[in-house]
Structure formats: C-alpha cells, structure tokens
C-alpha cells in the first residue's frame, strides 16, 4: 500500500520534471549517441567528401549546381511547409540575387565573395518588399502571383534592354578556385540547412507554423501575421538570392535565363521526392534529381519524358517522400 502511494507520488513528480527538462537530452549509451549523430554525420561528411571523390571537371560543376538547387528547395520547403506560403518564386529569387551580384561585381568592382554577401542581404530585402503586397493571399493564389514575378522581370529586362538586355552581364569574376567554389557553396548549404532546422524548432518557428495551421487564432492572440510572413519570406528569399548570386559567379555570366522557371519547378519536384517538411529531404531530393537530369541530357528532347518517368513512381507510391 505504502509502496503503491510512493510509486504514484514519484511518477507525479517525474511528470513535472519531464516537461521542465524538455530539450535537455541525457545520453544513456553509445547507441543513442549514434542515433543522434549519425544522420547528421552522413549528410555533412557525404556532402563534404563529394568534391574529393569526383575528379571529372564536368561533374564537379554538377555538384555546385546540385547545391544551388538544394538551397532553393530548402527555401521552398521552409516557406511551404513551415509557414504555409507555397511560393513559385524560386526563379525570381535567383534572378534578383544573380543580377544584383553581377552589378555589384562588374559595375562597383566588389570582390566575388563580398558581392555574393551583398546580393544575399539586399536581394532578400528587395524580394520581401516586392512580395509584401501578396502576403495576405493564400494557397494557390500566392503561388500564381509569385510565378508572375520571374516572368515579369525577364520580359522587363528584355524589352527595356537594361542590365545587358538579352546578352546579359558578362565578365563577372569567378570564385578564386574550383575547390573554394565547391566548398564555399557546400558549406553555406550546410549552414543554411542546420540554421533553418534550428529556427523551425524555436518558439518563433512554432509561431510561424501556427500562421500556417491557424492564422485566425494567431491574429486573435495579438500578433500581426503579415510581419511573421514577411520575416519568413525575407529569410527564404535571402537563401534564394544567395543561390542566384553563387550561380552567377560560377557561370561568370548573368542573363535572363536566371529567371528561368526551372529554378522554381525543379526544387518543388525535389522537395516532393525527398520528403516535404523535413528540410533535409529536399536537399537529398536535389542530390538525386539534378544528376539524373544531367545524365538524361544525352537523350535530347526525350530527356523530359525520361525525367517524368523517373519521378512518377516516387510521386505515386511515396508521395510524402
């Protein structure tokens, strides 16, 4: 009888402790440690090792492109599944970041790394300001409007013949070396990936998720949902602009094709294949999709057919990644 009461009392005390210590993990064994570290370890080491095991120049370039798409997919996944804004504006972010970095580098003479950093920050702000009027829109409507932006920008540049017109801006500095280029982008991808993962798990991340699930209740709690949406868009577009700026410095050229819809659509496919809402999934999705897409180049026009066929089983049998 007494032991029963004591047992219950102990349980009662434990429950309280359980909540208060949430977020503090006690590692009990090597196995638990492995569970915690291995998945991250595989991703980090896997990405870092890639440039070392691939010697072919062409495929080394592909690694950088994979990372750029991965950044876009990460930005899409964050906005769509953690804030509830389905954005097709990936191409817009890339274009804005790309052109900004090109201008900073070729007109103002900033070194490559500095102009990428500048384009990331300024681009994030510009994209947010331009998207601000669309933030009250939801679901499909927001998607359509964000799709309009890259098309619009590309036509404006073409018609007004500004920023190099159809020729684009040439003679942009590349990053100092091929190794530097790859490790810079891989490093930033890892930084953004784990940064966003951390953000999503904070109280702020919880509020962003609440904006997605239940915006009326957030408003009733005395919070301006537009502010939080704008904040999220700012982060996502800064990531996109960074991707665009890096791309421009890899190709040493900024043109209208940076507004190509590939940059909007492929990241979405990668997110779906890799697992939406997981943040890591989209990165893995890009690791699969982009090389496949490169391999299929040999097939010419049939490329997109094979491409679709390769996506199809994943979409129909494992729609959640």
């Amino acid at each position: 009888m007494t032991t029963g009461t004591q047992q219950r009392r102990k349980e009662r005390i434990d429950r309280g402790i359980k909540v208060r210590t949430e977020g503090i993990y006690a590692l009990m064994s090597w196995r638990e440690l492995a569970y915690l570290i291995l998945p991250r370890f595989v991703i980090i080491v896997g990405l870092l090792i890639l440039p070392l095991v691939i010697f072919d120049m062409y495929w080394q370039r592909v690694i950088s492109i994979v990372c750029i798409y991965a950044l876009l997919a990460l930005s899409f996944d964050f906005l769509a599944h953690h804030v509830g804004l389905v954005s097709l504006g990936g191409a817009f972010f890339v274009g804005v970041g790309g052109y900004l970095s090109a201008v900073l580098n070729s007109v103002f003479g900033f070194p490559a790394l500095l102009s990428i950093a500048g384009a990331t920050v300024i681009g994030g702000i510009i994209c947010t300001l331009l998207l601000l009027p669309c933030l009250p829109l939801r679901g499909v409507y927001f998607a359509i409007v964000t799709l309009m932006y890259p098309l619009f920008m590309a036509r404006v540049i073409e018609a007004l013949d500004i920023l190099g017109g159809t020729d684009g801006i040439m003679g942009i500095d590349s990053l100092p070396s091929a190794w530097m280029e790859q490790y810079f982008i891989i490093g930033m991808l890892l930084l953004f990936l784990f940064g966003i993962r951390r953000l999503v798990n904070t109280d702020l991340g919880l509020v962003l998720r609440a904006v997605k699930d239940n915006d009326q209740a957030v408003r009733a709690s005395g919070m301006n949902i537009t502010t939080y949406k704008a904040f999220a868009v700012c982060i996502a577009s800064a990531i996109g602009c960074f991707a665009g700026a890096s791309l421009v410095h890899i190709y040493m050229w900024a043109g209208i094709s940076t507004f190509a819809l590939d940059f909007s659509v492929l990241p979405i496919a990668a997110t779906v294949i890799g697992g939406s809402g997981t943040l890591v999934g989209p990165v893995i999705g890009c690791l699969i999709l982009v090389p496949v897409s490169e391999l299929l180049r040999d097939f010419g026009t049939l490329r997109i057919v094979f491409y679709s066929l390769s996506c199809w089983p994943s979409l129909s049998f494992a729609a959640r990644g």
Partner: protein
Amino acid sequence: MKGGPILQIQEITKTFGGIIALNRVSFEVGEGEILGIIGPNGSGKTTTVNCITGFVKPSSGRVLFRGKEITGKPPHKIADMGLTRTFQIMRPYFSLPAYKNLVIPLFSPRARRTGGWRGGGRRGDRNTVGIDILEEIGFERDSYVPFKVTSTLPTGYLKRLELARCLALKPELIICDEVFSGLSMSEIASMVPLIERLQMSGITLIMIEHRLRELFKVADRVLVLNFGEKLVEGSAAEVMADPRVREAYFGSEKVEEVMRHA
C-alpha cells in the same frame, strides 16, 4: 452596471450584400461585469463578436474600448489592447501538445509586455508558463492531459484551451463565444466556477450562449438579439419576464420550464 463602461458599442450595423446581419445595435459593458448575449440562431451574436474584435469591419457605427475608438482596427491590434475572444468553432493548434498551444500567444508583444502569467513569459520559459496557465484553467497538473496532442483532447478541454489562449495575453475583457455549448452537464458544472473566478480576478466577460440556465447563473446582465436587432437588455429575471422575448425566442412553455429551474 458595475463601475464605468469598459466597452461601448454605438449603433453598429453590418450588412453582408443585401442581408442585414446587425441593425443599429448599441450596448455598453461595465468594468468587471459579466454580460450575457442570447438570441436565436442567426440573430447576429457571432457577427457582433466579429465586429468588436475586428475580424469583420462594421458597415457603420462605432466601437469604443476604454473610451478609445477601435472600430475597423485589425484583430491583432485589438487583441493587443487586451480585448480577446474565444472562437465558437474551436481553433487550437491540433498537431501540438496542449501546453505548446500557449507558447504562441505567450510569444505575442502583449504577453511579453505584461509578463504573461505570474511574471512568466521570459525567453525559454514559455512551456512552463503555458502549463501554469493550463493548471489555472482546470487541466490537472499532475496528469498527462496538458502534454497530450491537442487533437486527442475532449471538447471540454478544447473549450478551456480557447480560454487559456485568451488568458495568456492577460486580457482585460474576454468575449466567450459559446463556451458552454457541446459540453456535458458535469463539464459545465466545473466551468461555471471557473468563469466566476475569472470575474473575481478583475476580468470583464461577454458571454454568447445558448445554454440559458447556466448563463443566468453567472451573468450580471443579459442582452437579447433577434434578427440583428437589440430586443431587450436587463437582468435575467427582467429579460425572461419580457413578453417580446418569450414570443421571439423561447416559446412560452420553455420559459416557464427554465424559470422553474433557475
């Protein structure tokens, strides 16, 4: 009316297309009182709440909170002033554990300013403060209930969770949109003292209700809406005695039954 008016509604009209949902409705709520609003379905109760809390912009008329005009302000500004509401159709964050629901309102500017609950609301402390509020509102602290995923909670707890979301903001006025409906008699019986306790702590309440018997127990004054117009306003007994109310709303037999129990 106890004390001065905290909320003044002046000649509010709301039309949806050609339909008049509210027609020149005026009333006042005194500091610290409980005002009940009743009326048949479609009489404009929830529209009134939406007009006051900014979720719907009234077509004409004014809403004053503590003498300041709040007509047409966005909901988050109004909530930030301490005028909060619950939703008739409960809107918790279903995928989260119950106590995590409160982290969100505790993140708001008002909660940070007022220190949330019992001086809490500090960074990283929102989980604990959330559980404190849940305990205050009748979640058993020593049970697993506050930690259960919200979608698995019964209606009674969800209603309390709605109230808890308001309390996290340290409100001055709470508008409860049908907190009693859908609850069993025993759940209501435990809810009534809770409402009284909120009033004791200095919070003004407006209660929109269909459960008249329970409402009359707690409400200081009652207002009857019918077809978007104010019919009567007064104490429970006055309202019940009014022939227009009997006619428009209850049907005379029902009134006597309710009166007998009240």
